[in-house]
Each structure stands twice: as structure tokens, then as C-alpha cells.
């Protein structure tokens, strides 16, 4: 009899854990999607929705490794300029259009020939895309490009139905059709987007019947939504709400590291920041550990490179330990024994605790004699200010949407990309420029070595004060299982089920 009960308990427990079909999941998030056209969207919510509706040739897993998806395999030519993809057969888009090499070529030819918002992610590299067979597609590049597979894993490389693009034209962003596990149902702007299961999905029917993405701009309200059971997932939760949610037996708090490095850029072309010792002094004067623990409540890790640890190519340089004495010595050596005055610009509310960080940095720099005025600016005005190269010190964050080091080093630290492009610190080092350019053309370990060297030089040159790598806090109801998180700040429930 005892055995029976034990077995029964185990069986019930198993039922609770086993994948179950059915149910609707409601996701409460802060902002609405903008356009559901992969080639023409730049926002995170649109990409999240699209990653449920569409597949790419390749895809990221949660560790940002690149795995086959619609392409079952691929070959790269010796010189690195020709990529041949072998596609899975027998797959159909939600509208019945067959998925084949023609469809892939159509998608990429559209993005490289038209002026879409993600054109620049592919146009500079792809010379041509040709369907050589029903299920074989060949990408010819202008030059070898080491980060190409990362670009193909980007949300912009998701494949949509050519029929839908032809039917809807410029309105296709309201009618997304892919091969993915969920089909688009409706979009009420500013309110919600509904998806339903694609029962014919080539990897097998998804567990959930429906997903509803609901726009709930206020974080406190998102928390209420999950507490009241109206939503199963709530995204971007402020750290202050976490302790309360952690003691709720129905709620799981998911804290994951992102690729977002927060830094304070210094204008490398404007004294006193032209002197590397001054820039190094600023780095030594900031207690990164304290910032992470006290200001960010533990939801960040100190940064020791312009790349986050999960970004491809990251190398742990050791960074700058907190050493105010060394900072003072360096300042004295540079001819500023009594410090100097500078303005630190910061946005407020753009990044988690951005303004609070600026204030803490102000206090830390004051300890070594650097008197900093903190000036808050609204985001749009802030970006315009950076374009005009008026900045002395500025707080910013960056996360490469391709998850590759190239998309940090090149835009932010190559001297060809000074403001109004994204090298707002106006940093220039020919050696780093050369390493970045070689890195573009190299592959694998060789590329990693080049990036490693570049990071060592950059950290030594200290164009920025490297602050921290942010974590993302999302919460979900414990009834929901297998919620996935890509560190490019994308939360996925396409493989989730309700228990």
C-alpha cells in the first residue's frame, strides 16, 4: 500500500513537471512593438514578437551559441567570402507558401537593395544572394566577414513569407508571416498583440495555444499584474520590487546577465582627458564593486572591458581595481595634483539607476579632487548633444544586438566612427583600428586573439571609465515552465508550457 502511495505521489509530481499542451500566456511588458517586419525594425519588443513568429537560417541558444535552424548545415569557402546554406525541406510559411532557397534569396535581396532600417546590417557585406537549387542558397560577400553568422542570427535575418511581402508591400509590418511556432492573430496598437500556435510547426506543435503580449508601461502595474494572476510574465522589473516578489510562492524571479556595458565616456580630444593618465585616474577612482552592490542592488557586475562577458570575443582584462591613492598619484603626475572640474552628462531613467550612478561617481571623483557637475538631459536632447561633440564626460550603455564583439569595437572605438557616429569618446588609436579591421576579416580563434589584443590596448588607453554590465530582471508565474532568455535582452516563451 505504501508503495502505491509513493508511486502515486511520484506520478502526480511527474504530471506537474511534464510538458502539457494548451493554455494562453499573457506577457506584461513596458512598450509596444513598433513594426513587425524583421528587415525594418530596430526595437526590442518587435524583435521579441518576431522571434516567436519567424525562424532564421541559424539561431542563438541561451548561451548565444549559433545553431542550425532553417538551414540544416552550411559551408564556408576557404577565403571566407562564400557561405553555402543547405536548407531544411518540406517547411511551409503560415500562409502556405513553401520555404525554399528562393524565399531566402528574396528576403535578403529585399533588405540589401531597399532602404530599410536594418539594411546597414547586411548591405555593406553581402554582394549577392542566389538560390542555386531548391534548397541550397549561396551568400557571396564582398570580403571575408568574421561576424557574418552572428549577423544572420540577428532578428533582422528572420525569414518572412515572400507572398506576404508582395501582398502587403509597405504594410507588411502589420501582417507578419513566418515559419515559426506561432502565427500572428491581431495587433491592437498600444494595447496588445496576440499570437496562436502553429500546429503544423516543423519542430512540432508548440505547447501553448496562445501568447498575448500586453503593453503595461508602468513597472508597478506590471508587478500588480503578475501578483493578481492577470499576467504570467512581467518584464523589466525594478530591483526595488524584487524582495517582495521573491517571497511570493507563486512567482519565479529570473535574473540574467545581459550584454549591456554601462560606461562613462571621456572626450579623448579635450584636455585634461587627452592625457591617458587622467583617464586612468578616473578609472581607478571609481569603486565599481560598490556601484554594483549599493546603487544597482547587486543587479550588475563590474566591467573590465568594453565587451560584456557574454559578448563573442570578450577577454577578461582585469580592468581597474578601486585605488584612489593611485588615482591621486596619476593625477599629480599628469599635472593635476588638485584635480580639475568637468561636466558629466547623464540620461535619467534610460538605464537602470543611470542618474544615481552618475551621482555616486561624482562623489567618488570628488574624493580624488575631480569636481564633476552632473547634468541630466532628456534622451533625444542627450543624443543631439553627443553629435555636436560638446561632451566632456557622458554616461552611456551599449549592447550589441548581434552579440558579437565587432559590433562594439567597430562603432564605438574605431577612429572612423567619431561623433556623430557612435565613437562619442573621440578615441583614436591606429593600432586598435588595425586590429578591428583585421578582426572583421578573420575567423574563429584568430579573430578572438585580435579582439583580445584590442581589448587589452583599449583598457590600457582607458577612453572610457568602464563601469558595469547590467542584469535584466523578469518575473513569471511558477505555473509556466521553460521560459527562455537570450542575453540580447529577449525573453522567449515559444518552448514554454503551463503546468
Amino acid at each position: 500500500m505504501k508503495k502505491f502511495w509513493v508511486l502515486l505521489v511520484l506520478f502526480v509530481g511527474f504530471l506537474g513537471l511534464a510538458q502539457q499542451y494548451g493554455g494562453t500566456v499573457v506577457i506584461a511588458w513596458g512598450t509596444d512593438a513598433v513594426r513587425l517586419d524583421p528587415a525594418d525594425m530596430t526595437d526590442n519588443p518587435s524583435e521579441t514578437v518576431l522571434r516567436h513568429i519567424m525562424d532564421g537560417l541559424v539561431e542563438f541558444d541561451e548561451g548565444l551559441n549559433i545553431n542550425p535552424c532553417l538551414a540544416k548545415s552550411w559551408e564556408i569557402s576557404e577565403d571566407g567570402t562564400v557561405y553555402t546554406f543547405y536548407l531544411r525541406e518540406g517547411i511551409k510559411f503560415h500562409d502556405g507558401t513553401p520555404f525554399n532557397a528562393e524565399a531566402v534569396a528574396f528576403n535578403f535581396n529585399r533588405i540589401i537593395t531597399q532602404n530599410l532600417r536594418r539594411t546597414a546590417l547586411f548591405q555593406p557585406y553581402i554582394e549577392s544572394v542566389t538560390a542555386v537549387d531548391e534548397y541550397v542558397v549561396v551568400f557571396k560577400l564582398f570580403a571575408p566577414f568574421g561576424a557574418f553568422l552572428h549577423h544572420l542570427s540577428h532578428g533582422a535575418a528572420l525569414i518572412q513569407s515572400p507572398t506576404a511581402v508582395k501582398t502587403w508591400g509597405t504594410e507588411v509590418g502589420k501582417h507578419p508571416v513566418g515559419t515559426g511556432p506561432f502565427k500572428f492573430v491581431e495587433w491592437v496598437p498600444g494595447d496588445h498583440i496576440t499570437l496562436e500556435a502553429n500546429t503544423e510547426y516543423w519542430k512540432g506543435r508548440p505547447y501553448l495555444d496562445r501568447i498575448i503580449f500586453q503593453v503595461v508601461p508602468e513597472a508597478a502595474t506590471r508587478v500588480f499584474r503578475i501578483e493578481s494572476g492577470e499576467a504570467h510574465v512581467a518584464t523589466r522589473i525594478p530591483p526595488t520590487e524584487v524582495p517582495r516578489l521573491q517571497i511570493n510562492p507563486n512567482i519565479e524571479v529570473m535574473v540574467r546577465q545581459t550584454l549591456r556595458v554601462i560606461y562613462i565616456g571621456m572626450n579623448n580630444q579635450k584636455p585634461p582627458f587627452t592625457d591617458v593618465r587622467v583617464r586612468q585616474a578616473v578609472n581607478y577612482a571609481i569603486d565599481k564593486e560598490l556601484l554594483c552592490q549599493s546603487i544597482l542592488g547587486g543587479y550588475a557586475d563590474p566591467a573590465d572591458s568594453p565587451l560584456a562577458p557574454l559578448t563573442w570575443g570578450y577577454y577578461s582584462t582585469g580592468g581597474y581595481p578601486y585605488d584612489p591613492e593611485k588615482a591621486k598619484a596619476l593625477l599629480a603626475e599628469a599635472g593635476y595634483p588638485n584635480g580639475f572640474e568637468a561636466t558629466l552628462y547623464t540620461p535619467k531613467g534610460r538605464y537602470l539607476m543611470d542618474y544615481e550612478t552618475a551621482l555616486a561617481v561624482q562623489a567618488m571623483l570628488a574624493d580624488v579632487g575631480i569636481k564633476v557637475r552632473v547634468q541630466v538631459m532628456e534622451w533625444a536632447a542627450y543624443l543631439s548633444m553627443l553629435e555636436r561633440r560638446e561632451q566632456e564626460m557622458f554616461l552611456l550603455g551599449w549592447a550589441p544586438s548581434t552579440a558579437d564583439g565587432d559590433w562594439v569595437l567597430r562603432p564605438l572605438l574605431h577612429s572612423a566612427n567619431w561623433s556623430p557616429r557612435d565613437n562619442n569618446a573621440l578615441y583614436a588609436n591606429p593600432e586598435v583600428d588595425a586590429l578591428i579591421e583585421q578582426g572583421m576579416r578573420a575567423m574563429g580563434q584568430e579573430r578572438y586573439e585580435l579582439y583580445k589584443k584590442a581589448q587589452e590596448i583599449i583598457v590600457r588607453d582607458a577612453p572610457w571609465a568602464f563601469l558595469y554590465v547590467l542584469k535584466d530582471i523578469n518575473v513569471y508565474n511558477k505555473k509556466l515552465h521553460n521560459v527562455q532568455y537570450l542575453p540580447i535582452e529577449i525573453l522567449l516563451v515559444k518552448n514554454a508550457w503551463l503546468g
Partner: protein
Amino acid sequence: MLAFFVRRLLMLLFVLFSVVTMAFFVMRLAPGDPARIIAGFDAPYETILALRRELGLDRPVIVQYVRYLGSLLRGDFGRSYNTRRPVLEELGWRYKNTLILAICAVSFSTFLGLTLGGLSAIKPYSIFDNFAMVVALLGVSAPIFWLAVIFMWVFGVKLRIFPTGGTGTVRHIVLPSLTLGLALSAVIARMTRSCLLECLGQDYVRTARAMGFGERTVIFRYALRNALIPVVTVVGLQLGYSLAGAVLTETVFAWPGLGRLLVDSIFARDYPVVQGCFIFVAFTFALTNFLVDVVYSLLDPRIRYH
């Protein structure tokens, strides 16, 4: 009466033209580049340049202005920079939502305000009066955000009677309109009380009483009717304000209305949507004012328009 209408219509057109012009230039005076915001922070610079060309932002402002006016005259409000949807499509259903919220909230506040204010005036300095005025004071001074959070927590999370926000059913409108309405009702209550008290002390009320009319007739037919004129002004203004200024309520309750769209669009420098919002809000304001004028004339036959 016809001349009055024509005059008002011309004024309305002038107001709308001024609003369009102001919205157009004020937005462009503010620092910030729409292309930069829309392209996304990590967008390559080429994308931003292409966007500027595409949106026509590389042309002189005056050319942009003339083009915009031209398309407005053809009834074309343009397309959102951000979503590429027509502005009217963006505004349409949000305007409807805002209208629903505003009407519900103002109806609730008018009912509550008139009741509290009226009863207080009839029995001034009584316990009820003191109680009602304290409630009114709290209503005026309690921040909407705080009120909203308390309501959501009590009715949404603890009692689970009403949803904590969003749209869809009649139940969704209850908490937002209660929150917004409560804040508005306080002003109406205090206004009603003081105006009614003043009217009740007038000679004509004493005369009415002396003539033997019942207290109910005296209050409703003579005193209240006169007392209502300033109250109607306040209600009209509140309707106008809640159409444009219910941003907080809309944000906290995730109510997709015009106020939230306006604020979001300002931050995104989505000029066509901002301009569209301004036109809609100004039009509604002007319309409400006109309706208030009409109600005046109904309440007080001495007020007539020639």
C-alpha cells in the same frame, strides 16, 4: 444664432491653425533628432542619414511646414515616423479610448461632486459637511498615481474584483475612471458647495421661501440652477483636461489613450503624431467650450448669443 455659429467656427479654425503652427515649430525647436531616436541607439550612422532623407528632415523647416499644411488641407495627417502607420490610424482608437475614460470619469466626478457639494451646502457646518469637505480635500491633494496604486492593490490584487488595467470589458474602465473621477470630483464638490451656499443666501431664494415653495423646489428650481453656472464651467474644463491630461491615469492603468501616445511621441520626436494629437486635443477643447456656452444659455435664459 447662425451668426454665432459661423463666428465660433471661424474662431475654431483660427485656433486650430495656431495650434498646428505652434506644435510644428515648438517640436522642431526642441533639441533631438527623430531619425536618431527611431533608428535605434545601436543603428549604423548610414541608417540614420537614410532615415533623415526618407522623412524629409533634411529639407528646410519652412518647406516642411508648407508641405505639412498642404497635406493637412487634403485631410492627410501624415504618417508616424516611428510605426509608419497613418497618423489618423494611430490616433483614432486611442482617441476613442480617451473619450470613454474622460466621459466615465467626468460623469462619476460630476455625480459625486454635486451630491457631496449639494448636501454640504444644504446643511453647512454639519458633521456631514465637514466629512464631505475633508474627503474633497483629500481628493484634491492625493496624487493620482498613489490613488491608482492603492485601488489596484485593493481591488485588483487583494479582492480581485476589477482588473488592474488594460482594456476589453466594462470592468476595465472602473478603476481608471474611479481614480481620475475622484480627483476631479473634489473640485466640483467644493465649487458646488460654495456657489450653492451663496445662492441660498440670495434675496430671490428668501422670496421663494416666503412665497411658500417647498424646500426641495427652492433648492432645485431656484438656487441650484443658478449655482450650477460656474460648476458647468469647471466640468467642461475638466472634460477638456482629462482628454489631454489623463497621462498619469492612462499610464498607470495601461489604458491606451491619447495622453500616453502624446507623451511617448514627444519623447520619440515623432512630429506628425505629436502634431496630430495637438489638433485633436485643441479641437475637443474648443468643442467642449462651445458646448459649455450652449449649456449656459439653457441654464440661464439671460445669457443669449446674438
